């Protein structure tokens, strides 16, 4: 179950490489690379969240907050102070790390639904701050004029260029996370998930680990937020609401919580559902998500990642 093979990663990287070219050949899906940019941005968040929820066994229903903190710090510092966007990304990640550590330390001492509620409350508080601090954030109307990204004169000003930039980071983060999972550190995380008392008795500093993974997932979310801000050149608080935190949950549940590939698959599907397949059925969006989440929870607890196992089970009989 744990030897995450390197070959699928290589195949996937190849797919990512070729996809924009392939999409250009078929008019119907010409615009798909744009959707893939969003999918990539969200994957940065869900990779970290998957480590937190699926492997360390903790829950967060407030990660939209970290996504938003990254986006707003990038937006505010580049637009109002003209700072270098890459430096701002780093600042955003650093600030997020501190906030996550501050909030995470008392929160992760809580279990189960207390932890869920604490993250929920935190997420909503940050959302309210985005809406209220109009002087900094532009309030409910949002903040526009956020510059794009460029590196040594090379502008990431087309969908394709941004696509490769974002997915480059996604694949790097994915490989990094897979490495962690397969290492002694990953073992310690899975031990925490299985039995915190036994893990502690074997020398694992459970409290510190939980905070570490929480901060890691928050920092990735912040990075994603910065990419989001520089891509759309506009952000508003509505993007970072409770429903988005729940959507992240759905992405992970759909793909399969205990499988890091699940994060990619689930995120991709939900993003396409959201930005493409359901765009003429907007009124049904919320019901569809609710139905998907319920279906996965009751019928397919291991998500899509669990399907091969179920099919194998049929054949064995």
């Amino acid at each position, binding site marked *: 179950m744990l030897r995450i093979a390197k070959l699928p990663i290589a195949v996937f990287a190849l797919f990512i490489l070729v996809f924009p070219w392939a999409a250009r050949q078929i008019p119907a899906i010409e615009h798909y690379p744009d959707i893939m940019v969003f999918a990539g941005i969200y994957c940065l968040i869900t990779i970290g969240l998957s480590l937190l*929820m699926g492997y360390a*066994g903790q*829950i967060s*229903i407030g990660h939209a907050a970290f996504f938003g903190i990254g986006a707003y710090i990038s937006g505010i510092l580049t637009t109002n102070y003209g700072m270098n966007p890459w430096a701002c990304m780093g600042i955003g990640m650093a600030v997020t790390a501190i906030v996550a550590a501050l909030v995470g330390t*008392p*929160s992760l001492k*809580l*279990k*189960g*639904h*207390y932890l*869920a*509620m*604490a993250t*929920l*409350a*935190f997420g*909503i*508080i940050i959302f*309210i*701050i985005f*809406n*209220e601090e109009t002087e900094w954030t532009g309030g409910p109307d949002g903040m526009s004029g956020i510059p794009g990204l460029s590196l040594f004169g090379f502008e990431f000003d087309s969908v394709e260029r941004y696509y490769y930039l974002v997915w480059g980071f996604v694949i790097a983060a994915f490989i990094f996370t897979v490495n962690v999972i397969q290492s002694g550190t990953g073992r310690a995380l899975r031990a925490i998930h299985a039995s915190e008392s036994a893990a502690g008795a074997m020398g694992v500093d459970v409290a510190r680990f939980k905070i570490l993974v929480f901060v890691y997932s928050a920092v990735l979310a912040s990075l994603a937020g910065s990419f989001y801000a520089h891509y759309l050149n506009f952000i508003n608080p509505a993007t970072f609401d*409770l*429903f988005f935190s*729940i959507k992240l*949950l759905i992405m992970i*549940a759909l793909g399969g919580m205990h499988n890091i590939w699940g994060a990619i698959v689930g995120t991709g599907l939900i993003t396409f559902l959201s930005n493409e397949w359901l765009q003429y059925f907007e*009124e*049904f*969006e*919320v*019901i*569809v*998500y*609710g*139905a998907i*989440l*319920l279906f996965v*929870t*009751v019928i397919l*607890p291991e998500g899509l990642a669990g399907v091969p196992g179920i099919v194998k089970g049929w054949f064995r009989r």
Partner: protein
Amino acid sequence: MEKITLASQLLQYLITGLTVGSVYAMVAVGFNIIYNVTEIINFAQGEFVMLGGLIMVFFHVAMGLPLILAFPATIILVTLVGILLDRLAIRPIRRPSVLTLIIATIAVSILIKGTASLIWGKDPFDLPAFSGRNPITFLGAVVQPQYFWVIGFLIITAIALSIFFDRTILGKAMSACADNPDAASLVGINVKQMIMLSFALSAAIGAVAGITMTPISLMEYDRGAMLAVKGFAAAILGGLGSFPGAILGGLIMGSIESFGAGLVSSGYKDAFALIVLLVILFFKPSGLMGSIEISKIKRF
């Protein structure tokens, strides 16, 4: 002159706070009923309140049914939704774990919310107040009569529940389940039915809260989440599982919010309850009336 105005201002905030707090108290009581029997925190609790308001709008405003008929009709319908939640989302889960149950109730809450937006759209709806809108002047504070209906229904609910749990067989059976489900099933109590009943009861109480509050603050499809979080905060403040705690917690929470909005900042109104929730969770999760031993023994 100034003193009277300030005092009546404060009284105004207090009455508003107790009214809003009554709604939170009813949500908190709903949380406790389900939690006591199942140890589940029902994230969809706020949706029952929302449905109470909107379904009442349907029966009373759209269909023109008189108050005396529309009220029970609404409650019955919302109760059915509560039963559905148990049947479709809770009972079928094969390997219930904390995480799974949390996610299940979240799933149902967004399903209900989505359905509501489909049926009623995204605009807020109003209900006529039960006894009109002529404001009552009370020691310098100007108060809508509907406020007293809300507080009144909290009192009725509290009395009805304590009679139910202390004096009726069904209520005692539910308390037994809450205390020790294994022992309860050994003496012949159908635990599954008790669970369903707890959802039904919680839904009904939520509906009452929704119906009584809509004439004051309107109701729209997405109000559920905030109500749930604040109701949960009230439940935790009072000590999870304690009914007097839930009522106390709700009233305190509502007052904090009302005074905060009036004296500090109305934009951050919602944040007050959330900050109180975080403070309690971080420093005294057993709340005002809960005990640390009990909160350690309960599975989560």
